[in-house]
């Protein structure tokens, strides 16, 4: 029932980003409650006979009462993880062929990830960048961290052009603990350049997830007539494009780009996921959880 709240167009009508994140995650969790693998609270692992020196707090007194023997109830050990979200706010992210722009969608995803991390007591951080680092919220589990994150996300506006090389050098300075790095961007750059820029993050033991956020009109452009396209990141650059070209040649190129980025990312141990802004958000969250579970 709550799945419908994961629809981007529906979320766009919700004013508060915290409410958006709560709606998404709660709806997402409710949709997954039947999953046998799911569970990020303390999970039962095994019973073990008491040995001297064990903490008496872990003795299962119910068992002791019935059997008159001391057993310890063991839980699966949990490790707090660190989540760092890199949100691209370049001008191209402001594109949207429907009410939800790519940046809006990315904000929803980022907010939802932050909320989910907060629920799991993961330290979450945020870096907002275009060709410069626009904002940085250091990962933390402190009280009020979620609201700081959401506030930063809320303030994110489309900026100038994308330049991966420059901000990513700074990112490496921010990463002191290994954790999960989520990059939300449209990746309008050559795959090799992207991988080359992002790969150093992987060296520190981070799990890097590339979420390529694209509008349906970018994946499969549909024009009824020739149009004059103006580059959002460079207003001086404009091209008149025929519907035939957009329907055939462009699609081949964008598909090749997506495929190239995907394969290059995987070959370098990076996780890649294409996010269509017309699709529900849960697909992106599911990808994040799959990666996180792998780390446990």
């Amino acid at each position, binding site marked *: 029932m709550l799945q419908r709240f994961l629809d981007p167009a529906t979320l766009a009508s919700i004013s508060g980003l915290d409410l958006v994140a709560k709606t998404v995650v709660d709806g997402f969790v409710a949709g997954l409650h039947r999953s046998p693998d799911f569970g990020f609270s303390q999970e039962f692992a095994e019973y073990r006979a008491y040995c001297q020196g064990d903490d008496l707090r872990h003795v299962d007194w119910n068992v002791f009462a019935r059997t008159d023997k001391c057993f310890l109830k063991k839980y699966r050990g949990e490790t707090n993880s660190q989540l760092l979200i890199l949100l691209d706010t370049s001008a191209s992210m402001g594109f949207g062929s429907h009410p939800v722009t790519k940046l809006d969608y990315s904000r929803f995803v980022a907010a939802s990830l932050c909320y989910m991390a907060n629920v799991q007591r993961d330290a979450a951080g945020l870096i907002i960048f275009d060709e410069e680092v626009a904002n940085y919220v250091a990962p933390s589990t402190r009280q009020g961290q979620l609201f700081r994150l959401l506030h930063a996300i809320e303030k994110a506006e489309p900026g100038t052009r994308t330049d991966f090389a420059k901000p990513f050098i700074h990112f490496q300075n921010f990463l002191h603990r290994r954790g999960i790095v989520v990059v939300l961007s449209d990746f309008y750059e050559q795959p090799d350049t992207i991988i080359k820029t992002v790969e150093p993050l992987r060296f520190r033991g981070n799990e890097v997830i590339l979420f390529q956020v694209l509008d349906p009109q970018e994946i499969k452009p549909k024009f*009824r007539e020739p149009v004059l*396209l*103006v580059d959002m990141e460079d207003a001086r*650059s404009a091209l008149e494009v025929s519907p035939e*070209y957009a329907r055939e040649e462009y699609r081949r190129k964008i598909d090749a780009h997506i495929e190239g980025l995907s394969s290059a990312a995987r070959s370098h141990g990076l996780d890649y996921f294409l996010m269509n802004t017309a699709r529900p958000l849960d697909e992106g969250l599911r990808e994040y959880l799959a990666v996180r579970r792998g780390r446990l």
Partner: protein
Amino acid sequence: MGFLAPWFLAGAAAIGLPIWLHLLRKHKTTPLPFSSLMFFEKRTQSSIKHRRLRYLLLFALRTLLVLLIVLAFARPFVQQHIPPRTRSNEITVLAIDNSLSMRAGKRLADAKAAAKSLVASLKPGERAEVLTFSSRVQVLSEVTDDHAPLNAAIDSIEPSDSRTSFAELSRSVRSIAKSLKLPLTVHLYSDMQQTGMPPNFNDLRLNADVKLETHPLVTKEEPNFAVENVVAPRRVFDNKKTRVLATIAGFGVHKDVRAVTLSLNGRAVETKNAEVPDIGRATVEFNSLDVPYGRNKGEVHIDSADSLPADDVFYFSIERADPRPALFVHEADGNGGLLYFKTALEAAGQSAFDVTPGTVDQTTNLSPSKYAFVVLSDIGALPATFENQLRDYVRGGGSVLVALGRHSLNFGGKVPVTGQKIIETRYSGREGDRFQVTTWLDTSYPSILKDNRWDDVKFLRAIRIDPGSARVAAKLSDQTPLLVDQQIGEGHVVVFASTFDNIDNDFPLHSSFVAFVDQTARYLARMDSGPPSVVVDSFAELRDSKERGAAVDVVDPKGQRALSLDEAAKAQNIQFTMAGFYDIRRPNGRNELVAVNSDRRESDLTPATPDTLSLWQNTANGTAEADTGAAGDQKPLSLWWYVMLAVLALTVAESLLGNRHLSVDSEAA
């Protein structure tokens, strides 16, 4: 090339629509922000140009389509050259009016002189024919280039008493042109009376190869007095003074007093003065006419002193005869309504019949043949000899009126003479319907023709008979036939299903009873009450079916036999062509004196306006052709159909091409 509706060309402004759609709207490129152009190339321009070329073809088709639709509305035409109509072998037709109005002054003589001068001016080899017209058209000569027969035909023209009919002339000219298949030039010599024009102008239409030249003999109206009408009885049966009413009309005259004289058999009876108002009518009443026995020639004439004396006299015939006997048979124990019947006949105005009453027993020694008609009023059984005589009498042309009552039921259940079966007696008692009324009347039946106000008549008893093949003229509310007319041989038997005695009905107490009895008596006695005079060119019947082969003598107003011997033996009708008295002597002794008068519309000498004559001439394009005939003619040939076919073809092409573009768009959508 021209346009029948050129103002529709303003619709060409609609071309702006495809221009806007294709050239303005299509080329107006709105910049569309896009996230990145890294996957687009400049070579897409050529594709756009190619696409524009394709759109240009669609644009051209649509523009042409709009233009052609506008063109279709403007009704384009081209002038089609028609070879000049040659008027070679043209025939000149001289049409001379000899109607009554041509008797005025020297009109006919002038017309003949003008026609003769035209004949004299004909070139050698130029053919002509002469015809005269009034209400009929008579061709007096063959088509010839010989002037002698043409002049002789003109000389032979005599004035008639008929009225002018230009419609008849046009019809004849059309017929002549059709039969000769040659161009005609009709020279019309007439006083061009306005009254000769038909009510429907289309009747004057002439063929395209007929050229009409009018030669009006008068151009302005002449004053004329005429005796327009005389009202007098056709027959009188007593020696009372007869009343005669004459109407004097003045056409184009000023107020004047005229002496009006009533004559009978050539002897002046009375003269009175009539004051005729300006262009109006005056009525003169004569009350002192003593009509002698026999058929008399009456005349009313005025001293008009105008140019047309032919209409100054009006003829009427009046006959004095003894009342004809009629036999009224009733039962001895009741007079069967004799009083009512006889009183009604006398109240009708003229004592045309002398009713002889008689009981059933007295009929044994009577012969019905000497009676105008026989009435059997509510009788039982008739003596066999008398009934046989009655049957022979009816077969020979006699007539019987049968009234059915309570005694009729004793007659073997049958109606006397006709033998029709009596089904039942219909009583109206205290229960149910108190009385019957007539619900259906055949108003064309002579007995009912003049007065059909039978609604208030109450019928308390009626005898229902089976009418068989007889004509039912009236029915009661329960569909009982009330008045039935059965023809037997040459005669009629009229059955009235009730009585005349105010017992079975109250019919005798109503005024309509008088009209019924009078009209029925006249119908049975075959006493027609036609007008005392008829107009020239009307017809009269000369014989009935049983008089076939017997000679009928007709003496015309000039005292000559109007029919040849062959016609006298065979002719069914005669047409009265002259004004005056026609004496018709039939083999059965039914002689008749018919007064014939000319149509008084001829008395109005007002000529038709020149505009009317010009319109008549233009009904044939003869005049126009005569002017342009040498150079030929241009006839507009409409291109509408061709344009519409082109529109259809273009629409199909546009649909096909447009669909191709739309299919691209739909895939993109």
